[in-house]
């Protein structure tokens, strides 16, 4: 079973522009069909080009790469809160499916810029209670995922899993939502396999020293408290 939260490094075009691959996390896997799904926002030049590829075309993909969310950190019967912001939401779908299939109670808290940026709401709702926040208030609660946690009185849980912007992850870390938490980091990457040292982060217990973790191979998922967010 593929660990949720791992990613593929995608070459969006055949030429040298854009030159580098794009790391995109895996949203869902169908092993029997030999398929996986990625959900991304066609925003920059690279993802725009990728969105123009048609069914049947071949795309050069390296992966699966990285270390994902530990599904077994939540025991059957425990409650896990899954928190996603924007393009950080997709890997939580695969995670939620695996958690629910082992009997973990899941609650989703998903944040988007606005209603038109929202996706997969129904699919998450089919797996467990799902709370939505939008920055402009066009759907769900107006505000951020942390506002949902406050409004719903979710101050504690057995374990939480989060993927989204660094500011969101920092807010979650400060909230002490659960004793066990796992966060997935985003960082600009070069090689994606741990060689170029473009995507490193510092350790909380050695924040001034030479120690580091690589987001592409040691992560993108880290236990809360391990790395400096």
């Amino acid at each position, binding site marked *: 079973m593929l660990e949720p939260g791992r990613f593929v490094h995608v*070459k969006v075009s055949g030429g*040298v*522009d*854009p*030159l*580098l*691959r794009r790391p995109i996390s895996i949203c869902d896997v169908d092993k029997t069909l030999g398929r996986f799904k990625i959900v991304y926002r066609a925003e920059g030049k690279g993802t725009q080009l990728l969105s123009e590829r048609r069914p049947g075309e071949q795309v050069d993909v*390296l992966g699966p790469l990285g270390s994902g969310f530990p599904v077994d950190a939540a025991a059957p019967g425990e409650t896990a809160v899954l928190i996603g912001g924007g393009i950080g939401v997709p890997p939580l779908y695969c995670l939620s499916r695996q958690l629910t299939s082992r009997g973990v109670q899941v609650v989703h808290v998903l944040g988007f810029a606005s209603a038109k940026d929202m996706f997969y709401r129904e699919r998450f709702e089919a797996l467990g209670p799902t709370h939505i926040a939008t920055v402009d208030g066009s759907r769900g609660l107006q505000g951020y995922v942390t506002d949902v946690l406050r409004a719903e009185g979710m101050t504690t849980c057995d374990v939480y899993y989060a993927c989204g912007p660094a500011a969101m992850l920092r807010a979650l870390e400060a909230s002490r939502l659960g004793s066990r938490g796992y966060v997935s980091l985003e*960082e*600009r*990457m*070069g*090689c*994606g*396999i*741990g*060689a*170029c*040292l*473009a*995507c*490193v*982060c*510092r350790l909380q217990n050695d924040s001034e*020293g*030479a*120690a*580091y973790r690589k987001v592409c*191979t040691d992560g993108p998922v880290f236990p809360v408290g391990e790395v400096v967010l």
Partner: protein
Amino acid sequence: MNRLQVELPGLRMKNPIMPASGCFGFGREYAELYNLSLLGAIAVKATTPEARFGNPVPRVAETPGGMLNAIGLQNPGLTDVLAKELPWLAQYDVPVVANIAGAEAEEYVRVAEALSKAPNVQALELNISCPNVKKGGIAFGTVPAVAAELTRQVKQVSNKSVYVKLSPNVTDIVEMALAVEEAGADGLSMINTLLGMRIDLKTRRPVLANGAGGLSGPAIKPVAIRMIYQVSQAVKIPIIGMGGIMDAEDVIEFFLAGASAVAVGTANFVDPFVCRTIIEELPEQLDKMGVSRIGDLTGAGWR
């Protein structure tokens, strides 16, 4: 006869392809993908006396046909490189080119002396061209007399061949090449990255946390070709050519310009198998050109 074999001072290479320093770590990640003994040599990541974390992120930014990086010479330090990285690499039948960096001349000398004693290190590459550190690096690579003096000091303590890695961020690359040749360099590697910058339209600030960074990739290949073409006609020592090599045709172009071997850098990030692929494709390229040995092409663009 091995058509791809080349010999440079200290380096007997089964083919002219080596991954460039800084683009291949110490080989561990790529060893998961293919047998490193296939390579002509490996130029490992720059080593400084002490471990360095490097610069804050973001450390990379894309540009048309290229990328900017400002890693900042992150490395585990001399002690770990000697105790862990080099002994690990010794399992492969491949010569190692140890890239040397420091903040002061004394630091370069210390690292050079220690690394030149490692049994699988066949050559040193003097990094006087890193644009991403506050002290050292490019500071040694833009004034010919300073570069020459450092070369002289490193040559004195090294019992392995010394290649000086030149910066393209100079007015007269030939003058620089002649200065380090005169100082005793056994060879040159060129070019390092070109200084560049990108600014984010939303934040109105440079994309890289460091501000400026080093431009690499196919975008800089014409600059590298021009500089090697000029320098190879002026010096007698061999050149390891680099700067935007993506495929076997690019390798041939560098040989025509005057290179005797090449290093592949940024392309490893795009396709981690690229060095192996190039090595496999070179014989066909030589056939196309009616050339029996790749070494025959060195400088054929001007000879």
